[in-house]
């Protein structure tokens, strides 16, 4: 059997074990590659800081990701929460995953210092789980109380000070949707499109492909793409965190896949030459 044929027939589990181990090594022995900040991430950060946010502005942060995508989306959400709180904006947290309360609890840990100075009900509120797809997001724009009569803890929205005058798109200054799926596009179609609400996405990397054209067209004022976007945001706010830590592991695994692809293609080229 030729070397190329042997290469082509390597048991897939060999790759899996290599990847499994390679992902862990950088955590034990960090490397610390430098990182540049992409324009779309900078636009997102600029859009939630400085003159673009007034004290008292009300923003929605949609946790459109579950625990499985924490490493992708959560660092970006953490930075955005910190940035908005530091501009004295008020934040409504919500999400369409069953484990949304775990994400909210984690955020209180990852942005603990910023939550410490804020009061629940006055500066932020957690509405909890939402479902109903596009119809629910449309209702959120027209009558928030029809999908959220009370917050996650059961308090009537009318009894929450910061929600007293908030019931639809007119009362919201911006939406940050952090997604693994379609919820960002629901906000796009039912909030940004018809009402011009400022919208940005803190999406998984796959959504970078579908979201970048929307950012270029001005539908999203900014966009963070996956854990890399999270790491870039951590650089912008000057507080390195989870995403920056994971970048070494990402580097090693990405290098591995490129090496694997090159090896496979060397095999193809050699075979072609031989034939």
């Amino acid at each position, binding site marked *: 059997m030729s070397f190329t044929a042997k290469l082509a027939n390597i048991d897939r589990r060999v790759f899996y074990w290599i990847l499994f181990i390679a992902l862990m090594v950088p955590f034990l022995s960090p490397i610390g590659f430098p990182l540049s900040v992409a324009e779309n991430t900078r636009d997102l950060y600029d859009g939630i800081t400085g003159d673009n946010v007034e004290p008292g502005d009300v923003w929605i942060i949609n946790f459109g990701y579950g625990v499985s995508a924490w490493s992708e989306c959560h660092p970006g959400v953490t930075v955005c929460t910190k940035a908005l709180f530091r501009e004295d904006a008020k934040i409504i947290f919500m999400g369409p995953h069953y484990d949304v309360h775990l994400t909210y609890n984690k955020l209180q840990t990852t942005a603990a210092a910023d939550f410490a100075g804020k009061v629940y009900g006055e500066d932020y509120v957690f509405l909890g789980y939402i479902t109903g797809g596009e119809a629910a997001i449309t209702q959120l724009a027209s009558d928030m109380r029809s999908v959220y*009569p009370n917050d996650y803890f059961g308090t009537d929205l009318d009894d929450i000070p910061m929600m007293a005058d908030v019931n639809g798109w007119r009362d919201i200054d911006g939406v940050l949707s952090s997604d693994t799926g379609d919820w960002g596009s629901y906000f796009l179609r039912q909030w940004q499109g018809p009402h011009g609400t400022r919208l940005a996405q803190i999406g*998984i*990397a796959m959504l970078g492909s579908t979201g970048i054209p929307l950012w270029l067209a001005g539908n999203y004022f900014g966009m963070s*793409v996956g854990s890399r976007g999270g790491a870039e945001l951590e650089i912008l706010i000057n507080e390195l965190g989870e995403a920056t830590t994971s970048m070494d592991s990402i580097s090693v695994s990405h290098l591995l896949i490129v090496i694997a692809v090159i090896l496979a293609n060397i095999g193809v080229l050699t075979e072609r030459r031989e034939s």
Partner: protein
Amino acid sequence: MAYPTAMWDVIGLWTGWVLMLMIYSYPLYKENPVYRTAEYMFIGMMLAINVVTNFSNVVRICITPMMGGDFLMIVPLILGIMIYTMLIPEYRWVSRYPVALLVGAGFGLGIRGTIAPNIQDAIISTITAPSDGGMMAWINFLYIAVGLICSMMYFLLTFEHTGPLKAPTRIGRLFIMIALGAYFGNTVLFRFTMLTGRAQFFLQVLKLIPM
């Protein structure tokens, strides 16, 4: 977040770690009863969480307002129950009414919302000439404009891709391949980041790195 100290939290952490290895036994070894056990437990729990979460949601947005005097809420409640006739073959047609409501609302909202951002703004962005950036900006502008026209032509499935359509559809296919390549690149980042999160958890439980 610090390493837990309470007994049940520590047991919980290790339970999660063991379950993780049970799932990993499938790709790293092969399909086996240990993996299946974890898989079936996950499905069972997910179904229950689905039922209780949505039940509490229905109580919150439908039953409570109905008890408070909004008697019109009986309509979606009945429509919702009607969907379960899907399980009874002779009355399956009844479930078409709630499905019709969902589909009608879905189409109505989807169609009305998609035109502006996904068609109109995309076209405007494509045909807006660059105001600065020099030669490279113009090359990119032409690349996107020509690429979009050719790629769109590739999806003209009502005509055979021959004659005058042959060259542009062929070029369009190449533009699509580039987009799919970039999409794959981003997919790699997403999938590997999720694996990275698990690798981190694996080491954290073993106290090899801080929580």
